[in-house]
């Protein structure tokens, strides 16, 4: 194949995937108009998503907080501006690094798992079996999962913020000798509720995105086990790209 043909084929492939996902997102949007969230499935998914993602999100956030302080630390020491550590930390972690990292980790853990599960159900005809039982896969499988991911991303962001503070305070104290009181004061003085809510809003949208993308790739799997593998891969990549693109627009919008 010539280069032009290959680029063309690649582009068509992307367009097909985007088109498919858009159609799927439309179906999900329509399903929200007749909300019939299956209670049992929703609880089940909230629990699973929470249990799966809580440890890695907590660890990620803890270290994200710590790393931010390490980065800021050099300047803080040089400028002797110890009272801005909390501010620099809080602003960047709450608004940007927190949601972004948690979103990416969440996608790698929960999103990938979800695509694999729905993909396996698709290739083993369990999804067709649901349809044959007159149960709509969008209502029964997708809605509870999307809701669980959206809700859990919001909850995890709150928990992640707390973990990041712990990581930040500990590092500031251990590495550059900033007293936790000083840290906390500069944090509470400069970091507003708006910063926290800004990050929370972003995370929630990321949760929605990961939910729709991972379910969409899962239900559109073709071609047996290798197809499931490809879909998991594509789902994680698409979620990551989607997170950055959405983040760009949200950052701009929520200023």
């Amino acid at each position, binding site marked *: 194949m010539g280069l032009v043909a290959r680029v063309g084929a690649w582009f068509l492939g992307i367009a097909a995937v985007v088109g498919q996902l858009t159609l799927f997102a439309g179906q999900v949007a329509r399903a929200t108009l007749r909300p019939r969230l299956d209670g*049992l499935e929703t609880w089940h998914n909230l629990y699973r998503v929470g249990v799966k993602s809580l440890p890695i999100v907590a660890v990620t956030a803890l270290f994200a907080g710590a790393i931010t302080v390490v980065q800021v630390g050099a300047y803080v020491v040089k400028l002797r501006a110890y009272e801005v550590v909390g501010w620099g930390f809080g602003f960047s972690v709450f608004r940007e690094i927190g949601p972004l990292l948690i979103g990416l980790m969440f996608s790698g853990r929960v999103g990938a798992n979800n695509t694999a599960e729905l993909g396996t159900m698709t290739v083993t005809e369990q999804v067709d079996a649901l349809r044959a*039982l007159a149960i709509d896969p969008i209502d029964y499988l997708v809605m509870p999962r999307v809701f669980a991911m959206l809700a859990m991303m919001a909850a995890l962001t709150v928990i992640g913020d707390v973990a990041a503070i712990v990581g930040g305070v500990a590092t500031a104290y251990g590495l550059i000798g900033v007293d936790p009181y000083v840290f906390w004061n500069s944090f509470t003085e400069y970091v507003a509720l708006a910063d926290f809510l800004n990050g929370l809003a972003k995370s929630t949208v990321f949760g929605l995105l990961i939910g729709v993308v991972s379910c969409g790739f899962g239900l559109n799997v073709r071609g047996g086990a290798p197809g499931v593998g490809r879909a998991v891969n594509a789902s994680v990549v698409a979620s990551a790209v989607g997170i950055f693109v959405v983040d760009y627009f949200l950052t701009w919008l929520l200023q």
Partner: protein
Amino acid sequence: MIEFIDVHKAFGDKVVLAGVTLTVEPGSVVFIIGKSGAGKSVLVKHLVGLIRPDGGEIRFEGQAISAFAERDFYPLRKRCAMVFQHSTLFDSMTLLDNVALPLRKHQRLGQAAAREGAMARLAQVRMDHLAQRMPGDIGDGLRKRVAIARALTLDPEYVIFDEPTTGLDPVSARHVDALIRQLSDELGVSSLVVSHDLRSIFGVADRIVMLYQGKVRLDGTPGDFRASVDPVIRQFVRGLAEGPMEL
């Protein structure tokens, strides 16, 4: 009544159905036979809208369903159940919950009441003692029996059985045969049964339809099949390795 009229279906350039016409009369048991890959599963999936025809028409009680949207199939699927060839139990839930799911979703039963109803259905196929097992922990034959129980939970008027006795031991297989016959004789349920099992075919069928090379080779009673002089039919009915049927 169910009618397939000149149904065509191809996947890519692979033609699977090249004009299939057949009728299932109310309350009757119609067997679809043919070698593996003949398109039997593809044919029966058309009826519940899991596969859409390229051409021809399918009528369900006189209503043309080829132009149905996915939503339109939901009422039909409650009346026409399907047992899949590979059972397709939901492997994230127990056998009991597999059978309870349609009850919970369609009869607005709570989980406890649905499980109670499901237990009775499992007892019908003698699987109640394994109710709390997961589908992955039991064999193919047992899974198939649970799949049958699950399909029957909503008391369908039509049932598609895709190879219901494949993988079952002979005793269980005859039990399933008896169940199919009983559904028809006592409840007036119409069944469309895909099978290779000669004992089922000649023991239970009211009519047999043989698919061969995308078309109906013969549509008749078990007697017609036994009496047929068509070499393809004779080869299949007698289970011979040698004959005109290409592999």
